[in-house]
């Protein structure tokens, strides 16, 4: 045999070993959903980890007492039903039959009670509930009751919330862990089991379909409500921090779904061969809302007149253009949205009151600033350059503030440093800060319960520490609102006060597209990316 024949044979043999990747392995691969989340969950505790990506992970593994449909209405999920007695002071819940955790144990009332207790220590909605709970009792394995010392009409909204720190039910032994310590195993009763042995933090999380999962027997699947039918044997989360790499992996078919393609890359999916293979759609209809958070305890933003001047100057479209660009998709021709107030525009809390404050007038703002005696004052703006949307918004904001007449000092750093530095209440000359830009999901601004940035409870408020008792009073009124009209009246008043006191400045809203291979069907709309109902065509 000639040497070149030998080499040619070896080459063919090597090529043959590669074939299974494309051929024989195909059926098994078809039963696996390969997904790229927007971030690395870090840890697997859905109560201590308040990141959205941790919530998304939790929806695979854990189940909720109540789901929420696309219209944001609570719908029974783990519970068969409930009764309310004693003028709203006693709630009795009955669990569905056959619910089991992934370790094989039955879901009991005591697991639900322990989960509510743990959640109620960390979540703002849960904290309000727990402040009104007299006691919680397991009446039988499937029945538990909550006795209140004051009615809590928003009970079901609290149980079914879909923003961060949702109420997920976990076994009592896990729920009894200190709420300020992470649980180290994720055992739920949801449609997928977490494969802890395959967990490589920062790189990969894997889930297997839970064969014993019992979906709701009837109803329509809608967001987190209705039957959760898992069609994939396995779901793999691949953490790909580099956007270009994630884009290439989606185009080459190595992944099926990229949750949040960046503004500069998703337009490439709308053209040519990519458009035939890749769909770009919006699943989070509540959008992402940008805000500028001023520091209320240091000059110049400790003066409400100065904060109002920023409202006068701001053009929300400028910010959103910098963040998401002008390219639209089939589902929405313009991903930007202006005229955003203090609640998500599609929410039942939204109103138009006060929106006329957004005048887009630099000249008027300069006059207001002059009158307030703040012209030329120093601002220290913190900018997290590792987060593209925040960096874009901050650069636009810094330019705006300079044009208004402030002396802007831009501190470019990473998000971890921003989080640490924003805890400082010191004056600027002692390491303090004036403001920062960030984003919240629309569902965070859906109602006052989860709306941390509008609150005015002083030292305990989100950094920036506004003290606005009138807003707190309206928030309390919302919790006690007996009907939708009363709830809307409370949020409308909150917004009116907010446009006066300016706990923060809304900088607009954008819709974040998601991109996936066109052979995926049944993707659910709503807030979190959900992994039931979806299948490969």
């Amino acid at each position: 045999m000639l040497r070149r024949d030998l080499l040619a044979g070896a080459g063919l043999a090597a090529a043959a070993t590669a074939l299974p990747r494309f051929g024989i392995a195909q059926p098994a691969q078809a039963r696996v959903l390969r997904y790229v989340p927007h971030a690395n969950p870090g840890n697997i505790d859905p109560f201590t980890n308040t990141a959205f990506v941790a919530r998304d992970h939790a929806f695979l593994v854990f189940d909720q007492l109540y789901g929420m449909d696309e219209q944001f209405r609570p719908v029974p999920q783990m519970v068969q039903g409930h009764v309310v007695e004693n003028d709203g002071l006693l709630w009795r819940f009955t669990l569905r039959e056959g619910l089991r955790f992934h370790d094989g144990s039955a879901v009991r009332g005591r697991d639900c009670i322990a989960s509510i207790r743990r959640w109620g220590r960390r979540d703002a909605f849960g904290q309000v509930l727990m402040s009104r709970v007299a006691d919680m009792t397991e009446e039988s394995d499937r029945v538990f009751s909550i006795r209140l010392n004051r009615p809590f009409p928003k009970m079901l909204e609290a149980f079914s919330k879909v923003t961060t720190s949702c109420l997920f039910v976990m076994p009592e032994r896990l729920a009894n862990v200190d709420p300020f310590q992470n649980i180290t195993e994720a055992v739920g009763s949801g449609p997928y089991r977490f494969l802890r042995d395959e967990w490589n933090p920062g790189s990969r999380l894997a889930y297997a379909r839970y064969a014993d999962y019992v979906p709701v027997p009837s109803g329509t699947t809608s967001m987190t409500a209705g039957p959760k039918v898992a069609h994939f044997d396995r779901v793999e989360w691949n953490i790909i921090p580099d956007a270009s790499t994630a884009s290439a992996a989606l185009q080459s078919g190595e992944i099926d779904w990229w949750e949040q393609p960046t503004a500069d890359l998703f337009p490439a999916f709308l053209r040519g061969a990519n458009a035939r293979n890749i769909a770009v759609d919006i699943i989070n209809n509540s959008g992402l809302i940008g805000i500028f958070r001023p520091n209320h305890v240091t000059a110049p933003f400790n003066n409400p007149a100065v904060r109002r001047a920023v409202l006068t100057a701001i053009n929300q479209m400028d910010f959103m253009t910098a963040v998401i660009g002008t390219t639209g998709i089939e589902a929405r021709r313009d991903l930007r949205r202006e005229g955003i107030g203090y609640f998500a525009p599609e929410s039942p809390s939204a109103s138009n009151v006060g929106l006329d404050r957004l005048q887009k007038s630099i000249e008027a703002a300069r006059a207001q600033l002059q009158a307030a005696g703040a012209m030329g004052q120093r601002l220290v703006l913190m900018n997290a350059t590792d987060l593209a949307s925040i960096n874009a918004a901050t650069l636009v904001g810094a330019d705006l503030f300079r044009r208004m007449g402030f002396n802007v000092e831009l501190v470019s750093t990473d998000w971890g440093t921003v989080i640490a530095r924003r805890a400082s209440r010191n004056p600027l000359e002692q390491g303090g800060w004036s403001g920062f830009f960030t984003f919240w999901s629309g569902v965070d601004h859906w109602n006052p319960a989860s709306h941390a940035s509008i609150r005015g409870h002083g030292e305990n408020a989100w950094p920036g520490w506004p003290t606005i008792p009138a807003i707190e009073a309206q928030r309390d009124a919302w919790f006690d609102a007996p009907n939708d009209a009363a709830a809307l009246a409370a949020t409308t008043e909150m917004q009116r006060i907010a446009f006066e006191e300016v706990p923060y400045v809304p900088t607009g809203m954008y819709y974040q597209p998601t991109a996936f291979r066109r052979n995926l069907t049944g993707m659910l709309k709503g807030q979190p990316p959900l992994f039931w109902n979806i299948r490969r065509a």
Partner: protein
Amino acid sequence: MFAYVVRRVLATIPVMAVVALFVFSLLYIAPGDPAAVIAGDQATPADVERIRQSLGLDRPYLVRFGAWLWDILNGDLGTSIFTNLPVSTMIAQRIEPTLSLMVVTLILAISVAVPMGVVAAWKQGTVIDRAVMAFAVVGFSVPVFVVGYLLAYFFALEWDLLPVQGYTPLSRGVWPWLQNLILPAIALGTVYIALIARITRATMLEVLQQDYIRTAKAKGVGQAGMLFLHALKNAAVPIVTVIGIGIALLIGGAVVTESVFAIPGLGRLTVDAILRRDYPVIQGVVLLFSFVYVLVNLAIDLAYTLFDPRIRY
């Protein structure tokens, strides 16, 4: 020789102690608060303080350093603040991809760069020499991530020859393992090839002027034998030194390469840990890298004796 090796190994202890002190102090004074990151947006200052206490972050510098050092001496690198997994477990999960990437890159770089440098020196002043030098300049100048993106674009997207990202363990077969490493190794190795090729050429040019080379030629030694057996062996000491120094380059480059190709290695672990201020993980990984670097230097020193019998320890 044995005594020298023992002495050098023992000398790593004070070096590692200084590294440990340096790493710990640097992280101590660096801005950032993992408790605030963990607490989330709805936490009160009291919640943050409670988390800080539970993590022991409120203790004085010396107490924290002492406790950490004691744990290290007992073989415990600590527990990740965020994942609650032992740092040693997280490093163990990540070490294979990084090690694989570095080994493949080293093999690729040495097997390409050394012949390139030798041939360039042999053909000094010719088109081949100029081409090698041009490659060296370009290879040294273009950032790793640019090379990475270009390779991924052509070899993965346009020609569909290799995967874009990820890592397959060696236990699943040599070819699947290698498939995921070829592009990253080329991307990471380009700068390394350029460096070694340049040094090899420069050293070979000097050696090729020596009298014994002329004598070898006069005795009728073949071109290949003369270049690779007689000249290269005598030029090896500076080349080996550069290869050793270059391992630091590889460690730095691995951070970028692992991000570009989504390889779950130690580089990405380090970046993630830094962004989250996961101090135990950062400390553990930096200590490991330092230890590896000290050992590599020792190995390089010992390798000198193989190439130059006059060197004795």
